[in-house]
């Protein structure tokens, strides 16, 4: 019975236009534009300053499209060839995407030909926006998700290319501007907090990650955090299912 809930909710919403979906997506992606341009430019500049041709940051930002992993890959390319090590490191750094996929299984259902691209382009920031509100009023869900994904990727690839081609020419001191992404995650966290049923998972996510960061350090805490969060959720679920029956 419960599996039909989200479908019933979808039917009730009037379907919006393509243009309306773009108009809804663009302002929501503005903080990401600011953050991605700054980080993208510094990534592109880093790559060319290490002697890589411009096509490298361009192709890597477009194809890998996972910010922190691209910075890690710069180090991989500068050291000795180790394909298995590269694969293991990639899987560890990006394991959090598995969570995004689990959460987006029902959201992406029925998005048709756009679906492979929605999955391909699901970075942290895109997931944060999409899971906070996957279908704003007046939008077509598939097109809205498509535009959020596409705009964010344009900002990132554009920033990386700019940085690679022009170098670090910004005369405006951008130090600290990358805090814009932290501020966005915090605001989306606070928005989740408004829904009563999301408070417990939100606080569990925050405290488990904080504890794992302190124990495992900044380079190794993501997977332990995921394991702890999953374990707590499964225990809570087991408990509530038993109470319900």
């Amino acid at each position: 019975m419960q599996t039909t809930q989200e479908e019933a909710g979808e039917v009730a919403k009037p379907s919006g236009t393509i243009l309306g979906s773009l108009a809804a997506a663009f302002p929501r992606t503005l903080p990401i534009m600011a953050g991605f341009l700054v980080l993208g430019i510094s990534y592109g500049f880093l790559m060319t300053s290490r002697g890589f041709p411009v096509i490298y940051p361009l192709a890597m930002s477009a194809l890998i499209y996972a910010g922190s992993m691209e910075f890690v890959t710069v180090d991989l390319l500068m050291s000795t060839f180790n394909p298995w090590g590269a694969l293991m490191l990639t899987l560890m750094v990006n394991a959090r995407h598995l969570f995004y996929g689990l959460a987006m299984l029902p959201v992406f259902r029925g998005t048709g030909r756009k679906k492979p691209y929605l999955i391909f382009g699901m970075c942290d920031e895109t997931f944060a926006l999409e899971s906070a509100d996957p279908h704003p009023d007046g939008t077509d869900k598939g097109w809205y998700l498509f535009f959020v994904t596409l705009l964010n990727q344009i900002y990132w690839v554009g920033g990386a290319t700019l940085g690679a081609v022009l170098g670090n020419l910004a005369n405006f001191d951008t130090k600290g501007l990358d805090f814009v992404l932290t501020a966005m995650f915090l605001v989306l966290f606070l928005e989740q907090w408004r829904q009563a049923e999301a408070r417990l998972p939100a606080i569990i996510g925050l405290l488990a990650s904080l504890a794992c960061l302190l124990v495992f350090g900044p380079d190794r805490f993501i997977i332990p955090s995921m394991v702890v969060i999953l374990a707590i959720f499964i225990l809570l679920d087991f408990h509530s299912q038993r109470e319900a029956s």
Partner: protein
Amino acid sequence: MTTTQQLITIGIVVLGTMATRFLPFIIWPEGRRPPALVTRLGRLLPAAVMGLLVVYSLRHTHLVGGDHGIYEALALLVTTLVHLRWRNMMVSIACGTLTYMALVQGWLTFLVGLAGLG
């Protein structure tokens, strides 16, 4: 590293990243319903992940030594207060970020930089 080895390394990183993104959708395509437990976890995870992402984006903050994360703490506080008061995403993000920039650059440098833009 030769160019071929570089291209192989990049290819592996691309494939590994895509594996983490596509795996849930390959295991449970549209025709196949995930177990009820997976669906329930999927509902709880976004809220938890948002907490994880806040911590993740601050992971290099030095609580011990340096400035002890005081700038980050202040900017987070400003973001939270502005958001609770006005509930406007863009305003909250802008206020928090400008506060942080002013703190790490020093107020004077920051204001001169802003004036130089105009």
